[in-house]
């Protein structure tokens, strides 16, 4: 059946020794570049729609630069979450708890006791809680052998519950000017939140494309058994991927707290789905083994641009969500079509190799 062949073929890229060389995944690069160019095309189209529908606003160059940063600020929190999610998905997993991690880390860092430690204490708490929850996810999945979907779903419920308990079901107002200032501070005319997003994206890109950790992630997600035979500690690596996602959740919590000057148990609602959607339209394969950070970032920026486009045209949030849903479907359809043709090509090449 097509399904089983697709799975078998999909595993192909990970089968070579992941430690030995990178040509096979670099070979996949041109496909990523094509895809990213496609996403850039979508982005340009959205901007053109913006220009056509609101020429009055786009006619003002100061407004345009303000708007670019408004879109990037909107993308920043979810972008950070998406970087972590991209690693987890490439590694063959899924993290449904990231939104809840953001809420728990945010709420915990804004409670009065934690606020009394100052900005440092708040940041430390948010990051510790993020990594801690991520490690628990990783432990349950790697060593408890729970399916990632179930483990992180359970964590989603539990972490939101704990966040509600800690916050006493109230909005926790952040009185810390340093934390709140992150959202309004600019350096050389560029908002601090955009720098933070850039740092996380660049670090993620280097980690995925230029380190053993990244190669192992691709290998573990592509074919865990082959990765194990190649000497990778798959369980430990998987655990680290969830810790990384949790860390991103912690960073996002600080950013979101700074933006909203507060945190509450219901914050970052459905961020996990936004992050998964952005990663998927960015070309990350939901079954693992393939994906790019740049693609995910473009996915997030596309979603932020749609939100912005709908806002400047006074269109409803519901309609905006329908359009987002449509884009996800189209992106996955395109991905399947492209991937099919790519794998067919690989398949044909393999056949040629075996016959000669």
């Amino acid at each position, binding site marked *: 059946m097509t399904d089983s062949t697709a799975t078998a073929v999909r595993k192909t890229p990970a089968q070579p020794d992941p430690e030995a060389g990178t040509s096979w995944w670099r070979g996949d690069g041109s496909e990523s570049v094509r895809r990213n160019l496609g996403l850039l095309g979508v982005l340009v189209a959205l901007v053109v729609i913006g220009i056509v529908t609101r020429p009055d*606003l786009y006619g*003002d160059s100061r*407004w345009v630069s*303000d*708007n670019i940063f*408004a879109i990037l*600020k*909107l993308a920043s929190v979810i972008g950070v979450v998406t970087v972590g999610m991209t690693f987890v998905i490439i590694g063959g997993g899924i993290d449904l708890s990231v939104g809840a991690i953001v809420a728990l880390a945010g709420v*915990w860092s*804004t*409670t*009065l*006791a*934690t606020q*009394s*430690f100052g900005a*440092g*204490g708040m940041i*430390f*708490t948010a990051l*510790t*809680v993020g990594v801690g929850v991520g490690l628990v996810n990783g432990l349950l999945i790697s060593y408890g052998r729970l399916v990632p979907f179930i483990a992180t779903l359970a964590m989603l419920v539990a972490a939101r519950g704990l966040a*509600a*308990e*800690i*916050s*006493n*079901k*109230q*909005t*926790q*107002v952040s009185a810390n000017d340093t934390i*709140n200032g992150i*959202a*309004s501070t600019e350096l050389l005319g560029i908002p601090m939140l955009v720098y933070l997003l850039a740092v996380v994206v660049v670090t993620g890109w280097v980690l995925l494309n230029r380190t053993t950790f990244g190669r192992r992630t691709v290998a573990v997600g592509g074919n865990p058994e082959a990765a194990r035979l190649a000497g990778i500690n798959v369980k430990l690596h998987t655990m680290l991927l969830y810790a990384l996602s949790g860390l991103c959740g912690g960073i996002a919590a600080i950013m*979101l707290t700074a*933006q*909203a*000057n*507060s*945190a*509450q*148990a*219901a*914050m*970052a*609602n459905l961020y996990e789905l936004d992050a998964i959607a952005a990663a998927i339209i960015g070309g990350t394969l939901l079954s693992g083994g393939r994906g790019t950070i740049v693609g995910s970032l473009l996915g997030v920026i596309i979603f932020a641009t749609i*939100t*912005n486009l709908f*806002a*400047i*045209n*006074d269109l*409803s*949030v*519901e309609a905006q969500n329908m359009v987002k849903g449509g884009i996800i479907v189209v992106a996955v359809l395109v991905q399947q079509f492209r991937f099919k043709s790519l794998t067919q090509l690989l398949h044909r090449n393999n056949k040629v190799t075996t016959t000669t």
Partner: protein
Amino acid sequence: MTQHRRDLSRRRLLLGGAAIGAGTLLTACTSNEAEPTAAQTKAGDAGGGNSAPGKKVTIGFSAPAADHGWMAAITSNAKAQAAAYSDVELKSVEAGADAATQRAALATLLSQKPDVIVLLPHDGKELNAFGLEAMKAGVPVVNLDRAFPDALAYRTQIKGDNYGMGVSAGRYIGEQMKAKGVTNPIIGEIAGIDALELTQERSAGFRDELAVYGFKVANRRAAEFTADTGQREAAQLLQALPKLDALWNHDDDQGIGVLAAIKQANRTEFIMVGGAGAKAAIEAIQADNSVLKATVTYSPSMASSAISLARLIGQNKGMSDLVELQVPKEITLTSETITKENASAYLKLGF
């Protein structure tokens, strides 16, 4: 020990201390929560007459899980009011996050046969059948805030005036614009969850009242009643409207984020009206150092009133100031406008 090592160990100690500090939060009450103010409940011995201890009444209480300051205040006010009466026993059940869970919780509550049930349903339509069932079983139901469509499903209904909130906000903005001589103002609106009827009612009231002045809403964004979504939608709305004269935000909790977005965008050219009457909002109005100039009330003190009414129903008493022998069927609160001038009077009602 070298200086470097000393620094390291000191750093570890500090980090460890911070971790322990964070850990203690689980056991200690350290959240930024304000307890219900005395004004949100009425002491049992105040005024004599109806408040004098009488027949013992068991009141069952159910409200949706609080994920929001207003809802949290509803539950804490109900509990505080019940505690103020020596003749009331409150049986409170967590209603969870959806109508099905609340229905299950209420079934358990009904089986314990309380004298009266005070109920804030997730959605009045979804729990109408329960109201009918309880009333049929001889347990009077006091509907709190979210009306049942069927008049037989409740003994008494006490609710806020969502349409009136919109009207009050619209009127304040209309008057202010008139006073400033702005003839064609640009008005923005940050609503709550659009799927809720109450949000639609608030927006309808706002629209209708603005129309009286010949004004209309230039851009309306729906958020989710949380500070982070309020910030997100407000930031986008401010982009859409580079010049703004007035803004109505439906909810003060959400307003924390809306105000943060306004501050981050460095915008001061307009006036803002809030909604619900949170303490922080009233204080900000009083301080008069932000764009927030007024808020329209939707007070969670209605939960305290609901418990008082339930007690009177349970004791078969009326409301002593009225000529009626029994508690009336329906009470709708008015939505008042809090401004700098009257803020001090309302501060005690802030939640």
